[in-house]
């Protein structure tokens, strides 16, 4: 009985790992780091995490996980409340419709797909906030932010792949 219970708890924790690892990386992206190469521009961590988990483990990273991650990002960030949720929901919608072209493909294709989707999502965020503030935000910095995010994807996905391969059991579990 106790074995069964501990097994159930382990399974439950494993199913939570994509969200927990995403939250950890999201928190890390807000930590002040003086040694960053690109000054204060950091990769859009939530976008990377949602993309990775929705491509590789859509069975345990669902709509509510995406919403929760957006909510946490909204709490830490100073953008108007709801903006990050909205952006990540757009990302969810895009990946839900495009995942069949991206999942199971070689890494370079996944990365290429990420770059295109991240560009659309960051542009959506830029548009939403420009409408909200009734003035255009600097597009050059959005472009720079996109480049940093796209360049960081292989490194962040390496961390997430480690979590997936070593800490989460297969789908059949």
């Amino acid at each position, binding site marked *: 009985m106790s074995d069964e219970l501990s097994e159930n708890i382990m399974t439950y924790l494993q199913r939570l790992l994509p969200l927990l690892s995403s939250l950890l990386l999201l928190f890390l992206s807000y*930590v002040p780091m003086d040694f960053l190469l690109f000054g*204060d521009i950091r990769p859009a961590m939530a976008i990377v995490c949602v993309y990775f988990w929705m491509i590789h483990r859509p069975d345990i990273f669902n709509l509510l996980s995406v*919403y929760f991650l957006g909510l946490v990002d909204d709490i830490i960030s100073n953008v108007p*409340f*709801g903006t990050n949720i*909205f952006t990540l*929901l757009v990302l969810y919608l895009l990946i839900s419709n495009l995942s069949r072209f991206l999942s199971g493909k070689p890494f370079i294709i996944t990365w290429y797909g990420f770059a295109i989707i991240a560009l659309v999502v960051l542009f959506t965020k830029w548009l939403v906030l420009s409408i909200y503030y009734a003035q255009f*935000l600097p597009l050059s910095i*959005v472009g720079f932010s996109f480049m940093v995010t796209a360049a960081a994807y292989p490194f962040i996905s390496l961390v997430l792949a480690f979590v997936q391969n070593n800490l989460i059991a297969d789908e059949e579990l």
Partner: protein
Amino acid sequence: MKRRKSLFMHLSNIRLLAKKFALALLFLSAFVLMLVNKTDTAIIEKTSSVATDALSPMIDILVIPARAVADVYDYLKELKQIHQENQELRQENRKLLQAKDRAQALEIENRILSRLLNYVTPPEAKFITARVIAEEGDAFSHSLIAYTGDAKGVRKGQVVLSNRGVVGRIEQVGKLYSKIILITDINSKIPVMVERTRVRGILTGDNTPTPKMVFIPLEAELTVGDRIVTSGVAGVFPAGLPIGKISSIEKNNVKIKTFTNLERLEYVKIVDYGL
């Protein structure tokens, strides 16, 4: 068999419909949250403060190892410069000692003249030094979270300084953590003036590292390198706090380079001027 198959298809259709409905509902909730935020109600602010208080300790834990890595990096980087910096500091110290003597003399003179004019001195500023635990500075927002809050007497609107000048103001106060909006953020608007000519304007952030000065009189004389300080208009910031220097002047676009490197703040000073 056929019946079972149709039942299964029916169920999967319902599931798909529920998923679409949930997505639409969540989109709507995000939209509503943004609308409520736009109307600037206290609900969002209060909820956000409580939530920031709950989440910030988790970031705070991560600061310690990150800071250790940063310290090692800084140590190696700065090792080369230490000797030269030391000589410069000795020279600067000599100048500062002279300036201190002059300042003391001026303070005494000021006290005597104030007494003669029956001048009421403003209350002395109180300040709190706080550690920065989170920073954000992309195209969408420029802010910090500092480890100090309501319990230490921090209030919304208080001025945040570094040792070089104005950094921003307090935007949200939780029990233990506070959110600071930087002067480079799009929501930041501060009344400022050119120190040399006393020309007034508004310093407005645009989410770039160099905020701009707007609402400057047409006939104003400005030159690159002019110091910009707070003007004290509107009573939120006291007059004379250093902000930065004019870095470029183009048609309708006066850019300011801040004295403080806003990307490298470990500690900030939150000042209550009693305004």
